[in-house]
């Protein structure tokens, strides 16, 4: 992704090797001649375009057509009118959303959940990777990796199912343990204040291992000579983690952080939907679950599209902001 910008202009970069040594005279040619040679190169590459065509069709149909269809957020969608013939409604749906009593709750729920999720789900895998990398070698390392990694393979439906079972107020494992120590049972899934802690903790449980493996792969790329040299100088493990390992994976951390921020409002929507109960809805109703409820359950397509568009724009704004900040801070960004 990054190299799409870094690279030279494709016209020169793409001087294809099979045209032999003609690249030098080519650059001196006049503009029309160059345009002509581009046409020839496009025609010559037709087989490549054939290989790419199904993917392009997919993107046009399932990505760009919905983007075009997002205009129904500004229309009153009717099934007969579709995306382009339904009557215009201006910004009515946005005004309705912004002035609805749901707006404040839904937006703050979304941001709170996303930020709490980011604050815990993002750093913990880094910590785990640094520890595993320093500590475990050979079989033990593979064992730790495999175990921590395993929950990635469990579907979100099952993870939420496990939560409902283990946190059940009457006979769940957690409440039995609380009872053993003489505490009062807690109705985790049926209370708004427990929704976010349970959500975040289960996200850590499910995702930390996968992200840890990414950082472990980056740590494996650090030159062992650095560690050897530091050891000769008498640096302790903690010092080496701090001065070698952490700077070594800093570029990966910052890219993953930007990506995580860019997806801040999208991640985990399925889980919020699954975890939602009538009793915790005050905390669990996020923008996306609200879109789902309004759009797909109540069939208010235009209103729901407006809410969805608001979500997308907010997401994009967050991504651009953080990318800018990261670029200023460490000269590493997505583009």
């Amino acid at each position, binding site marked *: 992704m990054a190299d799409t910008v870094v690279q030279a202009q494709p016209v020169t970069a793409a001087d294809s090797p099979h045209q032999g040594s003609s690249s030098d005279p080519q650059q001196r040619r006049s503009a029309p001649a160059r345009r002509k040679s581009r046409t020839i190169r496009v025609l010559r590459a037709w087989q490549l375009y054939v290989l790419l065509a199904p993917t392009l069709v997919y993107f046009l149909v399932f990505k760009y057509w919905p983007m075009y269809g997002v205009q129904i957020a500004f229309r009153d969608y009717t099934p007969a009118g579709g995306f382009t013939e339904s009557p215009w409604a201006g910004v009515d749906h946005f005004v309705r959303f912004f002035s609805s009593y749901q707006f404040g709750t839904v937006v703050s729920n979304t941001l709170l959940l996303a930020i709490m999720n980011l604050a815990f789900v993002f750093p913990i895998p880094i910590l785990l990777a640094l520890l595993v990398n320093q*500590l475990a070698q050979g079989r033990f390392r593979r064992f730790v990796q495999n175990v921590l990694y395993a929950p990635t393979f469990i579907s979100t439906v099952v993870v939420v199912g496990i939560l409902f079972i283990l946190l059940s107020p009457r006979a769940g494992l957690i409440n039995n343990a609380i009872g053993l120590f003489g505490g009062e049972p807690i109705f985790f899934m049926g209370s708004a204040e427990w929704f976010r802690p349970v959500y975040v903790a289960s996200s850590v449980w499910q995702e930390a291992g*996968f992200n840890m493996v990414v950082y472990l792969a980056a740590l494996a790329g650090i030159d062992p000579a650095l560690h050897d040299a530091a050891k000769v100088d008498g640096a302790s493990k903690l010092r080496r983690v701090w001065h070698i390992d952490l700077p070594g994976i800093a570029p990966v951390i910052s890219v993953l952080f930007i990506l995580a921020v860019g997806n801040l409002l999208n991640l985990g929507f399925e889980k919020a939907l699954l975890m939602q109960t009538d009793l915790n809805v005050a905390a669990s109703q996020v923008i996306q679950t609200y879109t789902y409820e309004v759009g797909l359950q109540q069939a208010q397509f235009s209103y729901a599209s407006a809410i969805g568009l608001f979500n997308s724009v907010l997401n994009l704004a967050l991504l651009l902001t953080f990318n800018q900040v990261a670029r200023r801070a460490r000269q590493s960004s997505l583009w």
Partner: protein
Amino acid sequence: MTTQLMRPPVTPRGTAFRRRLADPLFNAFAMTILGFALIAVIYPIYFIVIASVSEPARVYEGQVWFWPVGFTLDGYARLLTDATVWRGLGNSLLYTGLATALSVALVVSAGYVLSRRDLPGRKTITFLLVVTLFFDGGIIPRYLVVGDLGLLDTVGAMILPGAVAVWNVVIARAFFESSLPDEIREAAQMDGASDFRFFFRIAVPLSKPLIALMIVIHLIWNWNGFFDALIYLNNPDLYPLQLVLRNILVQSDLSGSSNLSGDLASYEAAQRLAELLKYSAIVFASVPLLLMVPFLQRFFTQGALLGAVKN
């Protein structure tokens, strides 16, 4: 540790002494954290496995902690005689197989083509693909498009709308860029190989690690996905396993509950059997996959490496 750190590290002897104390402390700290993490991951899964073969009443009373109490297979018997579970399993196998085959074919071919530096328009096309990572129309317009295509309540809805993930195309492109030098292609083209021929005869056979990774990723995604089914399918006969599980686990919609008798004791017993069924359902849906983790992890480490290199 602090007192040792205050001693100036002047002699090699002092340095060695300090390291002898600092590193064991670090190791102890690391072991504690990792031990806690291992238990936090293993124990809930282990508990569900033993609870699924325990007497439901004992689980309910909190007597099951470390081993099964009152061994029973009733939960599994009930689960495996449920027609919706088997139908869901069949549907999931069908959707997962078809969707994975299509996705891998598209991702590998698109990744290869976009790795070709001599492709006119490569930059523009890559940009158009990547844009969709950061902005999309949202679920409502997508739902309406799928509806306009007549895909609602068809197998197509489970295969087409999520067929290509941009991130995987980026990984595939990085793989081809780093492992398929231009020289090989130039040599093949010198010998008269067309782009098709080169792709199918040389690029694909050389990309077995990539294809294996993509198959594993898509198998797991498709197998575990439920959201597309939730929004695009209304007909319960088409439900994949995850949606059936959702009904059992999350919505507690237990298909046999209508034939419960009225008296309270047996109602409670049936309720507890229904709880037991949940434990069995979790084991049934997850443990086979978990047993494959050691074999699958190799592919993901490669994938993580590819991603990290790219980054």
